[in-house]
């Protein structure tokens, strides 16, 4: 059977985006830290999955949260692809992409991720306690840690820059090895 040409798939996805028929657009990307699946929602990047996360489950979650009209397009997400690749390959110093945090339902966790996205730059690190304080509740460091652990958009919302006050580099949703690579890339370690 003749496989479906990529050009046809791209044409369908582009037309879908143009006509407002796409609830979400995703792309698969090879990077120095492994394959990533990047999902764009209505307002920005809504979900990034590392290669260990099963794609079917991730996309089913996207359909449930954003709507079932999920399409794939490298072309529609070209800017995000370039930005993420350049950042992880060390060619760009900042990764500045709009985020769509509608996967995060709890208001405080959302506030934590917004604060992290807006205030902790490359090369900087912050403790969970400090992040909780900046987000409006100094005592909620556990909630801040939960927010980071469940961050739907790692890299773009830089939860790898959050460290425990007790020392060490702590945990990371994408694995501690990746956290270390990212912090070294940014010169924070």
């Amino acid at each position: 059977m003749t496989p479906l040409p990529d050009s046809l798939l791209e044409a369908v996805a582009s037309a879908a985006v143009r006509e407002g028929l796409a609830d979400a657009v995703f792309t698969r990307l090879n990077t120095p830290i492994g394959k990533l699946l990047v999902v764009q929602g209505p307002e920005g990047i809504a979900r990034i999955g590392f290669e260990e996360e099963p794609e079917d489950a991730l996309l089913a979650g996207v359909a449930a949260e954003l709507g079932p009209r999920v399409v794939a397009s490298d072309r529609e997400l070209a800017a995000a692809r370039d930005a993420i690749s350049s950042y992880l390959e060390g060619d760009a110093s900042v990764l500045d992409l709009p985020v769509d945090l509608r996967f995060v339902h709890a208001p405080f966790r959302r506030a934590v991720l917004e604060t992290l996205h807006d205030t902790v730059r490359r090369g900087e690190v912050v403790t969970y306690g400090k992040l909780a304080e900046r987000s409006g509740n100094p005592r909620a460091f556990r909630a801040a840690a939960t927010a980071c652990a469940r961050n739907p958009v790692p890299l773009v919302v830089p939860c790898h820059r959050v460290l425990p006050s007790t020392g060490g580099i702590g945990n990371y949703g994408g694995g501690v090895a990746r956290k270390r690579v990212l912090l070294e890339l940014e010169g924070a370690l």
Partner: protein
Amino acid sequence: MTANAPALPPFWSLVEAHGDELLAHARRVAGPEHAEDVLQDAFLRALRAYPRLRHGEHLRAWLYRVTTTAAIDAHRSRPRERPVAEPPEVGVSDDVDADGAFEALIAPLPEAAREPLRLRFVEDLDYDHIAGRLGCTPQAARQRVSTAVRTLRERHAA
């Protein structure tokens, strides 16, 4: 959506799972030169309708039907380069449903060719089931559908 009905899967997982066979289907019903345009149109029609589906069952068969309908509409809207023996005008109007349009499309053929085409493209049966309905072997059913498609295409290209 009822509690037991499966949720709608991400649309693109259907495209990736069934796209190749749908392209083959589009080639059969629309001809190789129009297959990609027809399938692209079919995917966009399916996307428009997708959120209104009540459950996530029989989606493959549904995509086959959408593709068949897109092929029929493309055929009807295509300007004819040369005069051809027109199928009867009965049922060929803008508000006709897809099956009516399909009947008009296959009207020039003898009934012995029309029946396998209906079973394949309207009822969307596989060749085992078509064989059961026609009382022949699956191989013979495949042959009859294929011959009827070829005859139909020759009629319309004539």
